[in-house]
């Protein structure tokens, strides 16, 4: 079992003297392990700091204050290669380098397991094949990554995360630019992976998806974590109206009930 935890984590960016807090004071945990795997959805309006928080959790950026721990060890004292074997990350709208085939792209997930000059071992090929099969993308193996559809590409990038053998998967809007069928396909895949013991955290814009698939929802607004917990608790009608400025029509607590949103004019919003 692995726990990734943030303790009062925050990050400021910008030039000296003019830096600005993008995210501040976040306490959050993500667990993985045989019976502990979970899918955590990060929701919040544009500019709330979802991408920034995911970069922190992926270990790509270091926090300016607070602490990030992986099983108690400071995340940023771990060497890159070791970190890459434990946390996998797919940035938003990653465009893979064009000339690679799908299997070459997924094989990059094995680099952190190999020596500098070492050619891939049979075990690496086996892992790549298994990861592609798990994501239902084995038939794409020889295709050029440049000619994949959005849904295929997303499955391939998730396959690469699996090839790293990381317990923690961090994905920034994996369902952006996908049609409805592919959105469901990707979300079902991620939920299955969480069920099988992976810790998955992802940014989502669709609250209905978060409600349906996430074990826990973390709601961000203005760089602060407003609430975290089961979707039914976090996504109360009042809070959604406060943070997003929309009125909820439907029952947020019932994951299968139809859901609709209506715009609320600025004056009518309850005070934050």
């Amino acid at each position, binding site marked *: 079992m692995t726990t990734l935890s943030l303790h009062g984590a925050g990050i400021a960016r910008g030039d000296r003297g003019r830096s600005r807090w993008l995210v501040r004071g976040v306490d959050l945990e993500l667990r993985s392990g045989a019976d502990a795997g979970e899918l955590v959805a990060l929701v919040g309006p544009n500019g709330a700091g979802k991408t920034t928080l995911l*970069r922190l959790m*992926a*270990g*790509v950026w270091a926090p300016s204050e607070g602490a990030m721990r992986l099983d108690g060890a400071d995340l940023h004292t771990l060497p*890159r*290669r070791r*970190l*890459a*074997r434990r*946390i*996998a*990350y*797919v*940035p938003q709208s*990653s*465009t*893979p*380098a*064009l*000339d*690679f*085939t799908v*299997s*070459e792209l997924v*094989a*990059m*997930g094995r*680099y*952190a397991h*190999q020596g*500098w*000059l070492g*050619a891939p071992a049979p075990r690496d*090929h086996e892992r*790549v094949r298994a990861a592609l099969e798990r994501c239902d993308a084995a*038939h794409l*193996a*020889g*295709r*050029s990554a*440049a*000619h994949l559809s959005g849904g295929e590409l997303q499955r391939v990038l998730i396959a690469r995360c699996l090839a*790293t053998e990381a317990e923690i998967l*961090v994905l920034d809007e994996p369902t952006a630019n996908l049609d409805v069928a592919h959105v469901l396909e990707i979300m079902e895949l991620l939920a299955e992976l969480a069920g099988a013991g992976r810790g998955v955290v992802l940014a989502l814009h669709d609250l209905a998806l978060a409600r349906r698939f996430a074990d826990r929802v973390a709601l961000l607004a203005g760089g602060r974590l407003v609430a975290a917990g089961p979707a039914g608790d976090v996504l109360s009608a009042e809070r959604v109206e406060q943070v997003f400025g929309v009125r909820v029509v439907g029952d947020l607590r019932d994951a299968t009930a139809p859901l609709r949103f209506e715009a609320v004019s600025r004056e009518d919003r309850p005070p934050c």
Partner: protein
Amino acid sequence: MALTAELVPSGSGRPRSRAPLVFAGGALLLLGLGAASLLAGAAELAPAQVLRILLWHVRGVDVPESEHVADVIVWSLRLPRTLLGAMVGAALALSGALLQGLFRNPLASPSIIGASEGAAFGAVLALSFGLAERSVVVVPTLAILGAFGALLAVVRVATRDGHAPVATLLLAGVALSALLSALNTWLIARAWEEHEAARRIAYWLMGGIADRGWVHVGMLLPGLVAGLLVAQVHAKDLDRLLEGEETAAALGVEVERAKAWLLGAAALLVGSAVAVSGVVGFVGLIVPHLVRLVLGAGHRLLLPASALTGAWLVLASDLFARTAVAPRELHLGVVTSFLGAPFFLYLLRRHRAETVL
């Protein structure tokens, strides 16, 4: 790439299965062209005679008096020139492959982004102030520093979040090259009173490997070997950097350290090559593209294959330069530019669609 991808229905066999062809074929071409290069020239020497001379030197036997003229031609003129052709080609092609990966830009290459001019500036500085006579390491050292300085300038001006857009990179390269070549012109003009020196610098700058000797082989060899080693160690980092620095970091690359090593290797290769051959353009642009078409984009194969392909391509170009208008010679830089410039325009046209100016 579309074609190769469609031709291969499935499996990851594409790059690996063609690698032996590229490497074995390249090695054979290199040997064949090398032999042709030893035989070509105004003095007609029989293959057996050339072989005999080479064997004498390999065994350390004294060359008989009657063969001294042939010995000078083969051992002191043709052999170093042949080796230099291959080495300059390898260094330039490899640096092009490194720069295209580092800048994530298919049009990056040493002569286009100003690295070659930077190296030339360093070398001209050494030549025109008479520093070159003090030690053989002065010219390559200053050339390597010049290339490194030019690369740093381009990185600062043209990259954002580690990526250099096609247009920005080209414009930065154009401006930098213009500035550096103006400086070179100024230095040559300054030296004009010593007519012979200025003529020599201007001639060297045109790009070629005529009238070079073993000392030049020695000037290029350390940079080439070190560049090859550093590049190969970081080949997998380049694969991952192609998707952006964030993804590379998440896949286990120490991004800043890898970039520093790769830039250093590129400067070492360009500087060493320019120090002995002047500005030989377009090799670094064409070769990685040709190799990528056959082997795919994985740098573990692309880098050594580019070096090998560059070696035989420049050797072939130099052979052409020596023989096409015999008894006169073309400049090697002229031949590679004739091959490369149209190819560059073709690439520019192909990439225009995805370029936002």
